[in-house]
């Protein structure tokens, strides 16, 4: 029974991996292409002034927008690169954690038969609202 379970589990694992690889890898490659074009820099420029509503400096847009395209690791590299302070890191971290890897996770949402528009707006709105709340708290403290 145990050997049988391991065999079936292994096979299911392979199938499951293949399903996920088919979704994730193409999007991943697309993101790498975007990374090397001026698209990201343009969006960062647009968002820089907006960061004020979270009581954050303009350069905080760099890790936030980076995390839309890449993942938390890319965002952390960006946080270090722009040099944010303790309170600012907490605010931007919460926003990044609520809305990151938007494209890869949208592909997963679609695979599950759910609405990409609904879930992407959900994450974006959640990040903005929590960013404002924690920005206010951090701004006062």
């Amino acid at each position: 029974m145990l050997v049988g379970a391991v065999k079936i589990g292994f096979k299911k694992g392979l199938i499951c991996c293949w399903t996920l690889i088919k979704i994730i890898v193409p999007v991943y490659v697309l993101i790498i292409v975007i990374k090397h074009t001026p698209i990201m820099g343009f969006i960062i420029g647009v968002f820089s002034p907006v960061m004020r509503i979270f009581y954050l400096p303009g350069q905080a847009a760099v890790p936030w927008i980076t995390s839309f395209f890449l993942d938390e690791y890319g965002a952390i590299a960006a946080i270090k690169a722009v040099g944010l302070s303790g309170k600012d890191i907490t605010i931007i971290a919460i926003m990044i954690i609520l809305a990151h890897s938007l494209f890869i996770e949208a592909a997963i949402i679609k695979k599950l038969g759910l609405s990409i528009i609904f879930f992407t707006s959900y994450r974006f709105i959640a990040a903005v609202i929590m960013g404002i709340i924690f920005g206010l708290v951090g701004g006062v403290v």
Partner: protein
Amino acid sequence: MAEIILTIIKESILGSLGVIKSLAIVIIPLMILIQIMTEYKLIERLSNKTKFITDFLGVSKDTLIPLLIGMLVGISYGAGAIIDAKDRYDLSNNDIFLVMCFLVPFHGIIEISLIFWVIGVNPVIIIIARLFVAIPVTLFFKKQIAKKEMQELKA
């Protein structure tokens, strides 16, 4: 230009291999574990005991494993477990919707909390902030779905 294209190709291949590797080393052992736990009826016993949690979120007790995996390990792995659970049990679309409402703000808590802790963010603040989104939103849609079902029953 040629240099950029070369970089893109190199990064794509190396990165994709990395993605495939990290998926495989997590998912294959997880699926073996789930299979063993299913055959020894461990999942059934566990999900019966934790029914109060799944009931609270308004989802079927069979979503326990996708919830746990998504919450602890990460959303792509959780989605894999949902796809797998869909075959094993009769998960409804509402179940999957509510599970994702919860997992989208609250996933991969171990890894994410740790990597942000390293750069000086208090993991407790992160977890509270994420639950503060995940629980109210899931409960809101649980109510909406219940309302809709009531109306359908009446009609």
